[in-house]
């Protein structure tokens, strides 16, 4: 027998009330005031001892009444056997099998498969079942049906993945499979280690009324796990050969309850062990391990793996990353006279990621070859090159080269010049009177200015602009001066971008180059114009990869320039599978699911180094945290309607069955009423028997009438 409201059993403590009342009340009523105990004291004590409770039947009856009432309110019900449960008819079962990375812990996945097999074996002849494998993704492995062998085969073929855990979509998928089922009993069976990080309480996933959720936890209560959760790279200056030295630091997290002591950890680069050391960490803490520096080849990629000695969850003991030498971004700065671009050259020289390789040339020195080599061309207060160089510039911009124009006194845009200016160049505006012009409006959502979007990230109003060129009919304005004139404008030409700054970058017309915002602003502008995208050293399994990472200029491994967008590509997974990579314009994202290194290469020129990419993919760090979720909490959260059970056999009951099983409280209540009646009879009888004898009372006052009244009341 179980109780619907077991907390109410605390009311049984109320049984103490009649006991206390029996004692206390007797004590109170039975005190007889007597003139003197002189004679009573002379009688031996044995004959004057007091009996504590005289009316045991009365006490027992009163306690019984309370106990029955408490039990009735606790709403007992009979769980009963299957036959008595009233759940009749065939079942539709959706088996949800967790295949997230954490299931690779110990024999968890083996136990999960056995649990799934038991569910399949327990199906009746008319029952139907489906199998859903889930991690962060959901895969319906076997559609609803009665084919036991297909189910068994799918269970046997299931393997844990490197993906994280998300229960919400899996339960929704299971409920979706049951939704259209005509079967009278529908049940979702969730087999998992119930990892706490997989359940989002705010997700609001609900089962349809009438569906039951059975949870089958396979996890262990006490788990030990350590994992490599991060790698950090400290680069040293490149030597003369162009190669860099990088110190790799691994962060190891101990997610178990016991200290890890001198656990071996190694660093591998392209399959070769670079360093081996040991790490110790207290429970619930992380420790950092720095390895010996490794040398990156110029323009090369290195596959780096930090590998911790395997524990019961080996998946998260290895951490993969792709280490590339710093990207170089060739910038061609065209100046009117030598020394004019000293501020600009210094600002470009302090770059780190990517590294700008500035080349300063006077206008006559600019050749088409120089233009072709550059990712970004800066025309610093000069007119555009004429002739072949001018045409080469227009062509390069059309194909994606960026162009930055600093418009000054010497800037001019003749009729024959390439059409690259984002507007019409006007007169010089002199604002030397007063305090000069300041930037009044800036498009902070634009990539060039977005680094200044947060508070205290740079004061763009600090520079004083004393002179600038008017720019009429601008295509797109990114910044304006305080009087509304154009300060920066943008124009897209083909795949290329053109930015025009309407003042100079030399310190004569303004003091922008002396302000702290100058360097970041210039770097942002160059990177934006070059279409540079920072490529992460690793990705997390199950998370979509930004297509720009796959297709953008890759510097080191694609120094020759930009690939054709239409080129078809394939990804070679760590397990050797060939996967199609969606095109750049495609809405479909590429989602790596395996742990290790993905190699993305052109489908046409397979084997060629051109267009080759490497992606390092790691297990979701959240999977290392094996803290368990209470299955009952999850079952309660998805509950909708009464027919939800957890932790074992769950059967859907009809309302009549439920009512019948819970009807015990009526009988208990009736018994309590009967006991109450008996108690009243007994108490009345005892009271009548006692009252004639109690003819003694104390009178304190002078008036006899109240004394008589009190005597009557007392009796």
């Amino acid at each position: 027998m179980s109780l619907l409201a077991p907390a109410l059993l605390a009311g049984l403590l109320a049984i103490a009330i009649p006991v206390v009342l029996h004692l206390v009340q007797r004590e109170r009523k039975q005190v007889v005031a007597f003139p003197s105990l002189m004679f009573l004291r002379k009688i031996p004590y044995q004959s004057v001892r007091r009996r504590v409770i005289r009316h045991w039947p009365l006490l027992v009856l009163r306690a019984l009444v309370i106990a029955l009432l408490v039990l009735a309110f606790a709403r007992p019900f009979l769980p009963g056997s299957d036959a008595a449960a009233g759940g009749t008819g065939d079942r539709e079962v959706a088996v949800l099998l967790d295949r997230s990375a954490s299931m690779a812990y110990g024999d968890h996945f083996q136990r999960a498969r056995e649990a799934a097999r038991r569910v399949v074996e327990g199906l009746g002849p008319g029952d139907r079942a489906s199998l859903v494998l889930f991690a962060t993704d959901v895969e319906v492995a076997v559609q609803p049906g009665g084919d036991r062998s297909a189910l068994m085969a799918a269970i046997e073929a299931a393997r844990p993945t490197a993906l994280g855990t998300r229960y919400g979509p899996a339960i929704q998928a299971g409920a979706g499979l049951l939704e259209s089922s005509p079967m009278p009993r529908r049940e979702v069976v969730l087999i998992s280690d119930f990892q706490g990080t997989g359940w989002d309480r705010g997700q609001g996933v609900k089962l349809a009324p009438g569906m039951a959720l059975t949870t089958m936890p396979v996890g262990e209560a006490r788990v030990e796990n350590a994992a490599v959760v991060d790698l950090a790279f400290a680069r040293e200056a490149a030597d003369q050969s162009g190669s860099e030295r990088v110190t790799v630091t691994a962060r190891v997290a101990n997610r178990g309850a016991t200290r890890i002591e001198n656990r071996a950890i190694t660093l591998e680069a392209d399959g070769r062990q670079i360093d081996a050391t040991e790490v110790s960490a207290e429970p619930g803490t992380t420790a950092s391990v720095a390895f010996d520096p490794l040398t990156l080849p110029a323009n090369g990629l290195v596959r780096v793996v930090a590998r911790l000695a395997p524990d019961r969850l080996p998946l998260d003991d290895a951490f993969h990353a792709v280490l590339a030498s710093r990207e170089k971004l060739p910038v061609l700065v065209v100046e009117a006279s030598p020394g004019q671009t000293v501020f600009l050259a210094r600002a470009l020289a302090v770059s780190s990621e990517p590294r700008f390789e500035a080349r300063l040339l006077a206008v006559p020195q600019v050749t088409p070859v120089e233009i072709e080599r550059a990712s970004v061309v800066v025309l610093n207060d000069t007119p555009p090159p004429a002739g072949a160089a001018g045409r080469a510039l227009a062509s390069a911009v059309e194909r994606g080269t960026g162009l930055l124009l600093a418009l000054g006194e010497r800037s001019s845009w003749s009729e024959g010049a390439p059409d690259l200016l984002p507007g019409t160049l006007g007169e010089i505006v002199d604002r030397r009177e007063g305090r000069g012009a300041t930037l009044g409006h800036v498009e902070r959502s634009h990539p060039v200015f977005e680094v200044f979007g947060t508070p205290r990230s740079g004061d763009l109003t600090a520079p004083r602009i004393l002179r600038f060129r008017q720019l009429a009919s601008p295509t797109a304005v990114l910044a304006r001066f305080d009087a509304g004139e154009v300060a920066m404008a943008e124009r897209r030409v083909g795949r290329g971008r053109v930015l025009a700054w309407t003042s100079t970058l030399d310190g004569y017309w303004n003091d922008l180059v002396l302000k702290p915002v100058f360097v970041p602003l210039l770097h942002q502008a160059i990177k934006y114009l070059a279409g540079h995208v920072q490529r992460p050293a690793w990705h997390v399994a199950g998370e979509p990869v930004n297509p720009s990472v796959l297709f953008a200029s890759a510097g080191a491994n694609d120094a020759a320039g930009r690939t054709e967008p239409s080129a078809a590509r394939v990804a070679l997974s760590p397990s050797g599978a060939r996967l199609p990579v969606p095109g750049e314009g495609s809405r479909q994202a590429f989602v790596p699911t395996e742990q290790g290194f993905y190699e993305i290469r052109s489908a046409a020129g397979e084997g060629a180094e051109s267009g080759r990419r490497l992606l390092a993919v790691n297990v979701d760090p959240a999977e290392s945290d094996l803290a368990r979720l209470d299955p009952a909490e999850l079952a309660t959260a998805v509950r909708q309607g009464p027919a939800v059970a957890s932790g074992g056999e769950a059967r859907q009951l009809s309302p009549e069955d439920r009512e019948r099983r819970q009807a015990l409280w009526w009988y208990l209540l009736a018994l309590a009423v009967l006991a109450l009646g008996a108690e009243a009879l007994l108490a009345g009888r005892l009271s009548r028997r006692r009252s004639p004898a109690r003819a003694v009372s104390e009178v304190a006052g002078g008036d006899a009438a109240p004394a008589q009244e009190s005597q009557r009341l007392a009796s």
Partner: protein
Amino acid sequence: MRTGEQAQAMTGARFVDPKVLARLNSLELVARTVVDGFINGLHRAPHLGFSLDFAEHRGYEPGDDLRRVDWRLYARTDRFYVKQFEADSNANVVVVLDVSASMRFGSRGMPKIEYGRYLAASLLYFSHQQRDRVGLVTFDRRIISYVPPSAKHLDFALFALDRAEASREGELAAPLLTTTERLRRRGIVVLVSDLYEEPDRVAAAIRPLRFRGHDVIVFHLLDPAERDFPFDEASSFEDLESGERLPVVPEALRTEYRELVRRHIEALGRLLADSRVDYALFDTSVPLDFALFRYLAARERLRRVR
């Protein structure tokens, strides 16, 4: 002891139920009610009481007052004889009332303190009617109020009686000794108490009064429940004076208790008689005038015998 029905049957003795008396507020009215009925009932006993009645002659001794010489007898016998009388015509009558907390007890409507108060008032009123000087002492462990004997002090005495409250522990020896010291002139001292002390200590406490020549009468007040112990329920018995509690199963010790009380009364009567002290037991359920009549009649008989 006679019952109320027997008292009612007595000629002229009007039955005055203590419960009825309890409803009368004025003590003087109560006393008058009791004593008037009592006097009406005593018309065949005219010599009862303290009077100027001649008692005997004795031989003259030097120093006797010559006014007391019976000259007629001298004429007949040629010898000097002096006349002696029964009592002084204006004797001091002092009622000493115990107002200790134990006197608060009462099982049948009237507590002992009430009964004692009416008894004292009746005696005082009765004595006042006989031109006696009346006084009052109330005490528990010390003297609470003291009204010196005087022919004009009846009202004061009744007022003090009316104010008397039984609330504290009591003791006999010390207050009675103090009373003895204060009453310089011999007289009649009536002690009204429940005498919850050992009999020899009671006798010892009263003895100084006797030594000073007082005529001492002890009225021992007891509630019927104190004698019969009719309790039924197992209870905690609380001492009215000390507050001490004792768990008691009454049916188990009723016989022993009654025996102890009987012996106590018996010992009191014996010891007090030895000290030439009149002792009378008053049951508070018995009508007051009947109790008075019975006692005074007995006293008269004793006096005549004497």
